[in-house]
């Protein structure tokens, strides 16, 4: 549980950092002003929440000794990340915000950062599974 918690929180923080850096670069390069819609606080919250959800999924699979399904869970996480890009594409921004066509370009890459950070850190938090422990005790 402790290992899964740290996996979720650390990957969430890393994803949030990547998103905020991308957010700053995008805003400064293209001169957009989407601060009314998203800000570092909301970005951090969303990243940590997403990574904690993934961690809970991993923890449940480990708890019920279904670790072979982690691959399936990874695919589901990737598909959900991909499906979530529909939201910024179809979103209508307040009319006083200029260049709304640049908003998806800002937000869509961010939707993949939590999954990317979580998957990157998997090897660092890979403990022995229940099956391994049983084999080891034999």
């Amino acid at each position, binding site marked *: 549980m402790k290992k899964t918690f740290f996996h979720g929180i650390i990957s969430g923080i890393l994803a949030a950092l990547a998103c905020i850096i991308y957010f700053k670069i995008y805003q400064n390069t293209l001169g957009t002003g989407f601060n009314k819609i998203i800000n570092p606080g909301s970005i951090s919250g969303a990243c940590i929440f997403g990574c904690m959800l993934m961690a809970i999924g991993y923890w449940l699979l480990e708890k019920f000794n279904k670790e072979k399904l982690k691959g399936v869970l990874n695919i589901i996480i990737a598909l959900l990340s991909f499906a979530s890009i529909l939201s910024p*594409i*179809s*979103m*209508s*921004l*307040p*009319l006083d*915000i*200029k260049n*709304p*066509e*640049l*908003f*998806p370009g800002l937000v869509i890459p961010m939707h993949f950062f939590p999954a990317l950070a979580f998957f990157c850190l998997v090897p660092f938090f890979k403990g022995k599974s229940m099956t391994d422990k049983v084999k080891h005790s034999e």
Partner: protein
Amino acid sequence: MKKIIFPIAIVATMLLSAFTTINSVSWKIADGYSVKFTSDDPSGVFTSMKGDISFDANDLANSKFNVTIDVNSINMGNGMKNTKAKNADWFDVEKYPTITFTSSSISKSSTGTYEATGTLNMKGVQKQITIPFNFTNNTFTGSFNINRSDYNVGTPGGHASSVLKIDVSVPVTK
């Protein structure tokens, strides 16, 4: 000497009265104007407008509006909607980049507001319309409805509302 006093007085009076007429009615469009259209769907704004405004509440006969809106400046809050609005089915920006309104007469209604009657040219269709408006604190404000099908904007029916409410607010300076 006496012979030229009256001719000079006549010319001077005419010149002064002419300048008075010119100076009293010309206005420049100031920053902060807005042209909004609202309905159940779609809603948006045009962010670029220019024009010549001559208005004097005491001389409505010589008052006139000639306003041009840049259709490319449409903003509906969504990039895909903006692109769709500019295509041939809707505003067809390549062929018709502007919407113009040229007034032919301005009158004062019984309720105290003003009414500008003139020609609205949108997507190549010219129709006479009357726009009720107020003029207070150097700002023109008005609201009126337009049926987009009258101007061949978009396909008739469908999920998009046919009648759109237009709200105009134009601050001006002399």
